[in-house]
């Protein structure tokens, strides 16, 4: 008994997960309807999603959900049968219904569904169905007149499995639904499998049916009735003419003769069922274990390196190494998801914002299948929401304004994702009025973010919008413009080891560009020696490594700062051993190596003792058990089992830029940023 309760709970959990997906399907489908017109395939998809929720809600006894989805389904059914056409008002009603549906699902999960008033909405949906039914009825009559023989006879062969009833299925519901799709011409019950009374298990299912039904619906529609029992029965639905032809051909298996679209539908379903749902913690646990395996494997290799091994053992070791690497890659790939999973919420956002602001805005999405670490994707929702709100609210003009300047009334916001090198780039572009350089400047001066005599280039001025508390919106709306947002966006992106930049052309719109690493969990690093310690520098930010000549390192301001000359370009030189207070490191730069890094267009020279090699490292959190360490973004575990810190080059850059503050280790003043001549950017060599 108890087991059954647990099982039911598990099924319900699955239901709620699936319901969330169906809701997304419904919403994104409804939004796409506006573009595609009433495309049948899309309507069918939406209908099936609603139907799935309804069916499962029915079997769990979630009545509120059931009646709401039923009402929704009726409207959708009118649409897909062509009895009515969608219009903006109807779309809005349906979107509203899908929202409420979401609320009811959430409330049902908490067991509070009764608290949400749905009667009004159900009524509204029903009224909508009835108002459309009147003219539709006329259309139906016309259609019948034009094609008096409309409709076909479908032959349904339905044999439930033995376990059918134990899964809580109800035959009568199915039969009722079949009766509703058309006229039942004939039905036969197969009792061959029925055992003797002594052997009969009263809870098992032994019967099968053959039903011929005359209907205007397609075989596929009729198949939908069986959506929830499909896994628990043998089902064949064949149009009569085809069946007859097959019979003539002597085929005994009618399934083989099923029309092609039917078979494709089956194939689709099989693809779906070949994926499994796994909690994220399990995947993360797996990733951790594999990470440890990689380390242990490296340790084994290291400790065997000095010994002479038999050829067989040597071979086995390298096989282990290869498999371990592959295993790691595969496991990491589990965490990769298409970025579309976060993009799909934005069409709705743009739609609603447009309605609210009285603007006409379209959202174009490109590269939704670009894959990115799940952890990164999860944290992208908020910053992207901010950027898109910002584009619609501040970027896109009112339709009248757009007309006046000769643009199309409908503004376009483009959300685009693609790979570039080891990074993923996400761009939010709008074709609106662009950033107002003068206003940003005035505001920045008023807020003390820059001096009025400071000459900044466009990029730097636009960059000011990411400063905390900065907002140029003249009216504080509830959409955006409270002066929080862009700085939060920047912080969010940086916490993902990414960077954000903005470019803009007055009158033509602006583009926000986010650069992100593929994954947070591993990175390619260069291991460097400092005294007896090993540090990792992320390879992405390294431009080159050079052994400096004596004349390449110059003191400025009486030794308070140092610059490194790279082919005439002056880079601030950071002695990492001093920054990290490491004893026994190389003091004479000509005996060490300068690693040249670049972040956001700023270059830096890092003095290290030696460069040990390049390796892929698993990033471990330090904050989890300790706290943030300055200029360190995480730690990793080396082949010998020791912990090594991974440098945060962006933060090193910031530290180097605000050297006005005391150099902790040297205990003396170092020059402020504007005292060190920051060289003009040079094309990467």
């Amino acid at each position, binding site marked *: 008994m108890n087991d059954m309760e647990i099982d039911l709970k598990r099924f319900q959990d699955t239901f709620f997960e699936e319901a969330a997906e169906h809701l997304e399907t419904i919403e994104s489908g409804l939004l796409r309807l506006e573009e595609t017109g009433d495309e049948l395939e899309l309507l069918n998809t939406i209908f099936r999603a609603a139907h799935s929720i309804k069916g499962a809600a029915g079997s769990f006894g979630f009545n509120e959900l059931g009646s709401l989805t039923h009402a929704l389904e009726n409207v959708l059914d009118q649409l897909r049968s062509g009895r009515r056409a969608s219009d903006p008002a109807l779309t809005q009603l349906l979107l509203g219904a899908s929202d409420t549906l979401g609320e009811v699902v959430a409330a049902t999960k908490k067991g509070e569904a009764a608290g949400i008033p749905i009667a009004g909405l159900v009524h509204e949906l029903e009224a909508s169905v009835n108002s459309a039914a009147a003219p539709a009825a006329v259309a139906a009559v016309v259609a019948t007149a034009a094609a008096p023989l409309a409709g076909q006879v479908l032959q349904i062969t339905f044999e439930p499995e033995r376990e059918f009833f134990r899964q809580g299925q109800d035959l009568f519901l199915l039969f009722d639904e079949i009766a509703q799709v058309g006229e039942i011409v004939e039905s036969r019950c197969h009792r061959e499998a029925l055992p003797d009374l002594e052997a009969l298990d009263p809870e098992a299912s032994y019967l099968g049916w053959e039903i011929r039904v005359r209907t205007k619906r397609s075989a596929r529609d009729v198949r939908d009735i069986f959506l929830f029992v499909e896994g628990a029965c043998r089902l064949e639905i064949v149009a009569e003419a085809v069946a007859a032809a097959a019979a003539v051909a002597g085929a005994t298996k009618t399934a083989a003769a099923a029309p092609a679209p039917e078979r494709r539908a089956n194939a689709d379903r099989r693809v779906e069922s070949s994926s499994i749902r796994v909690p994220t913690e399990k995947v993360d646990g797996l990733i*951790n274990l594999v*990470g*440890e395996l990689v*380390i242990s494997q490296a340790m084994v290799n290291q400790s065997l390196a000095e010994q002479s091994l038999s050829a067989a053992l040597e071979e086995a070791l390298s096989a282990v190494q290869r498999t371990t690497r592959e295993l790691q890659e595969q496991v990491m790939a589990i965490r990769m998801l298409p970025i579309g999973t976060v993009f799909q919420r934005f069409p709705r956002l743009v739609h609603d914002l447009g309605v609210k602001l009285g603007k006409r805005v379209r959202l174009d999405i490109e590269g939704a299948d670009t894959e990115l670490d799940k952890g990164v994707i999860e944290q992208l929702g908020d910053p992207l929401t901010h950027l898109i709100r910002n584009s619609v609210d501040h970027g896109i003009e009112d339709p009248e304004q757009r007309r006046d300047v000769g643009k199309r009334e409908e503004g376009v916001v483009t959300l685009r994702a693609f790979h570039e090198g080891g990074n993923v780039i996400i761009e939010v572009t709008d074709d609106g009025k662009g950033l107002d350089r003068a206003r940003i400047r005035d505001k920045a001066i008023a807020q003390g973010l820059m001096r009025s005599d400071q000459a900044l280039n466009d990029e730097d001025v636009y960059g000011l919008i990411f400063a905390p508390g900065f907002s140029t919106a003249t009216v504080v709306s509830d959409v955006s413009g409270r002066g929080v947002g862009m700085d939060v966006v920047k*912080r969010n992106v940086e916490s993902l080891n990414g960077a954000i930049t903005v470019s803009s052309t007055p009158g033509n719109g602006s583009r926000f560009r986010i650069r992100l690493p593929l994954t947070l969990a591993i990175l390619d690093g260069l291991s460097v020696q400092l005294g007896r*310690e090993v540090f990792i520098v992320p390879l992405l930010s390294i431009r080159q490594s050079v052994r400096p000549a004596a004349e390449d390192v110059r003191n400025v301001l009486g030794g308070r700062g140092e610059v490194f000359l790279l082919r005439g370009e002056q880079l601030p030189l950071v002695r990492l051993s001093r*920054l*990290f*207070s*490491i004893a026994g490191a190389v003091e004479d730069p000509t005996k060490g190596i300068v690693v040249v890094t670049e972040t956001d267009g700023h270059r830096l020279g890092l003095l290290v003792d030696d460069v040990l090699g390049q390796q892929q490292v698993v990033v*471990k*959190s*330090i*904050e*989890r*058990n*300790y*706290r*943030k*360490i*300055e*200029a*360190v973004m995480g*730690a990793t*575990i080396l082949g010998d*089992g*020791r*912990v*090594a*810190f991974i440098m945060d080059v962006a933060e090193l850059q910031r530290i180097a830029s605000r050297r006005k503050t005391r150099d*902790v*280790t040297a205990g003396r003043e170092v020059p402020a940023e504007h005292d060190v001549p920051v060289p003009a950017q040079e094309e990467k060599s």
Partner: protein
Amino acid sequence: MSHQHLDGRGESTEATSQYLTFALGHEEYGIDILRVQEIKGFSAVTPIPNSPAYVKGVMNLRGTVVPIFDLRLKFGMDPQAYDRFTVIVVVNVGARIVGLVVDAVLDVLDIENASIEPAPDLGASIDTSVLQGIARNQDRLISLLAIDQVVGTDHITTIAA
């Protein structure tokens, strides 16, 4: 580690708690045993740049990066070279895992809650909040540590973003 007091954990009532005791110099300290995750020999740690002296660094505990604190230095005692008796007591502080370097692990004791006396007032200059209380075991005096206070207050705080 023999103890007549330990009549089996199952029978220990709520009136008594078990403590792991360890030595720092000539003093004996105790930690609530439920907070102790494991005891490890001292192995190489990676020093953390620009951290207080008592933060010895971080070590790899089966794939997790765990900070190691030297309790002698934390309590302002003289440093002592690590030897083969030096151990790291790995404890849970909230959701965090930290390692404490102690001179040697001594015993596991059942201590009656009623017999724990509050830490005496040692004057304003000495912070006794790190002590849960003091227990007497025959002629031994055991300072019971409030472990959350020891490592939870000053240097394991998260930096407000």
